């Protein structure tokens, strides 16, 4: 009777079973050895100098906007390294107190830049809120992509628009002057002209 573990058949002889077990063991051993060697290779490797972001103390961005509105901020980046650095600022998803996550539509200007030693560059951030954005406080961070460590905390408060003084005056005037009266007034002024 043919022996095949995969199809649940019975082994033909104990020797055949032993050979299969042994070859399976050898295969597992060689795979484990290869994995170990690769890990060993990964533990020690050539150095690739990198860049760390250092946040200036107290640096944080707080924005206030209404649903459908726009907010602007700036991030000043200074290159303190001895060679040029590529800078690509980005923001993380913003999370509200209720757990809602906002994958904000943002644009940095410039989107990326090459900074020489000691050069300081201002990156302008424009943040657009969708019209149906739930109100709340959203928190996230501005990060420099590809650099480790530092981020700038970003807090965006989305609140309904408070009525402006002009809008309030208009409403008050509307209440004082009924619609019919306003219509007559408009007709008179049209005739006169």
């Amino acid at each position: 009777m043919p022996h095949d573990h995969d199809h649940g058949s019975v082994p033909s002889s104990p020797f055949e079973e032993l050979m299969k077990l042994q070859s399976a063991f050898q295969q597992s051993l060689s795979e484990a050895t290869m994995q170990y060697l690769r890990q060993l290779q990964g533990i020690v490797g050539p150095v690739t100098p990198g860049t760390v972001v250092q946040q200036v103390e107290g640096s944080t961005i707080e924005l206030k906007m209404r649903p459908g509105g726009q907010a602007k901020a700036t991030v000043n980046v200074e290159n303190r390294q001895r060679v040029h650095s590529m800078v690509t600022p980005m923001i993380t998803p913003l999370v509200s107190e209720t757990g809602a996550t906002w994958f904000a539509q943002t644009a940095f200007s410039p989107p990326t830049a090459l900074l020489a030693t000691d050069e300081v560059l201002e990156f302008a951030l424009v943040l657009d809120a969708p019209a149906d954005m739930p109100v709340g406080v959203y928190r996230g961070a501005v990060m420099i992509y590809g650099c480790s460590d530092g981020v700038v905390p970003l807090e965006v408060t989305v609140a309904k628009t408070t009525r402006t003084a002009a809008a309030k005056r208009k409403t008050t005037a509307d209440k004082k002057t009924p619609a019919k009266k306003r219509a007559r007034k408009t007709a008179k002024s049209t005739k006169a002209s």
Partner: protein
Amino acid sequence: MPNSANIRLIDPPEDAGRTTASLFASLASRLITLHYTSGVSVIGSTLAGLAEAGREISKTAEGARIRRALEASAVKDNGELLWSALRVTGWTEGMPAAPVLDHVRNDLALLLADDLAETIENVPAPLENKVHHSKTVPAAITFIDTLMGLWIHSREIVQSIEALARSAPDGNTVEPGDAVHSGPILR
């Protein structure tokens, strides 16, 4: 309400700083290492590096939007099918991740170095090998992470070369097109 922030880019405190000599030594080490390693290791490490970059970019709002759009398309299923049929996760398991973005940025900085000629003339001693404490067991290399890594890596290269073009003296500058594709489609 503060709507601006200041940050500085500095060298890692306990690592080799970015100087023309260290960047040159790093590039030379990478090339020398090729003589002592296999093609599988090189491709595997590069894939691992791309996958790591993909995981990192997926943490940003823009990256997350792109990733969600890719995951919602047929690309993800077909890609994972290929990944599984070719057993990519298996043969790349345990491969150290090459810092692919740092390589691009460091090589770009070398192209702009004022003291490159004299640095090459006085060939710097190779940097000491680094012991990676925290990444002894790298994460599995998935198709979608690698795809995301390819996206940000290629964008980084395009933007780097455009930045080089912009750094030309006034009068010789050709303004490249905007390489950042954004719009409501991925919102």
